[in-house]
């Protein structure tokens, strides 16, 4: 089966972002960028399905600025076969991303799309669900285990009370949660090999998708800081403070 994996270029998870002085957004200039961690997990899962002989081809797709090429290369170095960059300078919202991914999925006739459950920049947790809706496919979100057999995917999902397992007829959309796997580091030879793999570049207009945002950002603010606390010397003091000062126990 053919798999499509969506990978987003985001501010690295180790960076503590700063709000811009004019409150128009967060500072991204000169900040380290990486593949969204959940998307690494999505790529890893696809590569494992290929290693098991379940998947035959893996396409990684990213929507964004020209530098998203690097994110695609990372996916190729992990084991994906080829890449597609849908290039735009617009900060594309999940609805438009889902519309683009839909067109790519149909054009490439894939049997499943794997995404991260959440991009750690916008924290939307929406694109996979929206893509599934637009395609009319079933969805297995927040996956911690995926098994593919007989034209169906059995997906174990991380839910509020624990785990839930659903069975989806293929084609389907799956979004990766943290416990699905531990993504590999690309080896140097694989990084070299990835340089030769093909990346096609398209524009949203080539897919007839309008990426005009529906949301306008009025402003972006720093959350209010907590006031500095104190260190207590021992348990007795802690309990005394919680009882008599904070009055929470």
């Amino acid at each position, binding site marked *: 089966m053919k798999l499509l994996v969506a990978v987003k270029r985001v501010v690295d998870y180790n960076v503590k972002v700063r709000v811009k002085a004019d409150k128009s957004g967060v500072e991204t200039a000169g900040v380290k960028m990486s593949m969204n961690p959940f998307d690494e997990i999505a790529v890893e899962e696809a590569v494992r399905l290929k290693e098991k002989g379940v998947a035959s081809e893996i396409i990684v797709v990213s929507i964004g600025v020209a530098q998203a090429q690097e994110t695609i290369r990372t996916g190729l170095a992990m084991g994906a076969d080829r890449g597609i960059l849908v290039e735009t300078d617009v900060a594309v919202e999940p609805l438009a991303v889902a519309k683009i991914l839909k067109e790519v999925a149909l054009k490439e006739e894939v049997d499943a799309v794997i995404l991260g459950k959440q991009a750690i920049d916008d924290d939307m947790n929406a694109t996979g669900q929206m893509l599934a809706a637009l395609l009319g496919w079933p969805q297995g979100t927040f996956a911690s285990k995926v098994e593919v057999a007989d034209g169906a995917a059995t997906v174990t999902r991380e839910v509020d009370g624990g785990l839930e*397992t659903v069975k989806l007829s293929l084609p389907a959309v799956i979004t990766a949660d943290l416990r699905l796997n531990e993504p590999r580091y690309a080896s140097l030879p694989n990084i070299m090999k990835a340089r030769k793999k093909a990346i096609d570049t398209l524009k949203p207009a080539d897919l007839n998708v309008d990426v005009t945002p529906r949301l306008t950002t009025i*402003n972006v603010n720093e959350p209010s800081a907590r006031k500095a606390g104190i260190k207590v010397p021992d348990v007795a003091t802690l309990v005394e403070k919680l009882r008599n000062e904070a009055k929470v126990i």
Partner: protein
Amino acid sequence: MTALVVLDFDASGIKQPSRSAIAAAAKLGEVHVLVAGQGIGAVVGEAAKISGVAKVLVADDPAYAHHLAEPMAALIISVAGQYSHILQAATAAGKNVLPRVAALLDVQPISDISDVMDADTFVRPIYAGNALATVKSADAKKVLTVRASSFDPVPAEGGSAAVENVAAAANEGKSSYVGEEISKSERPELTAARVIISGGRGMQNGENFTKLIDPIADKLGAAVGASRAAVDAGYVPNDYQVGQTGKIVAPDLYIAVGISGAIQHLAGMKDSKVIVAINKDEDAPIFQVADYGLVGDLFTVLPELEKAL
């Protein structure tokens, strides 16, 4: 303007985060709620009593027994016409279903709102809560998930809503429920608890959670949470995870034990009223958000704390 809130419930009743979602919806206009499931008479009764609810829509059908995203989204779409806003708490269920609804309506959803400015304008945290974005939607209908910890839940009692049955929507049957493994606990739920004690990698294993954290949780009537590291290492189940990509909590008291305080963890708990950190590393970032920090070895501190309570 009328807002529809999709309710989350299980065998123990309607979830508290749903009453927070109703509180958010009440800022927008009249509030109707949707209860979908199988054999849900008791839940409907409970829903009709919630303060501020004008109408309860009921879809009692086997298709909704497990709240699968595909039939739930089809159902919500079938009743969406009359509503200006569709909301659900940002629970696992809400996050699963509402974006699907939004796409079917050609709407860009707004996830995890923490404030309502007006009918089109909402505040939501981005970048693990390191920034708060105020966004205005140009869509005719708004589809919103609600950060429950940011809205005081409306009272469970005091209302007397009308009840209206709605027909089940067509279901393509492309997904089916196989089973679940739900953690059983007598303790309060993380997202509703007044006190939470969470353990991290410093706990070293699951037995130490049972031996050292549980007795304190019992004394305080607290819920037990964890960092991602503790969940990944298998000390506790996935549903204990607090953080950017786990549960967002804001109890009166949050006690972090053997947790370093990575931004992803802080994202889930830094709005707690009082934070206590117990860590042997005096430079651990968790101390920067703690009201009361105790530098020490958790293996001596926790037994002492249990005795002192």
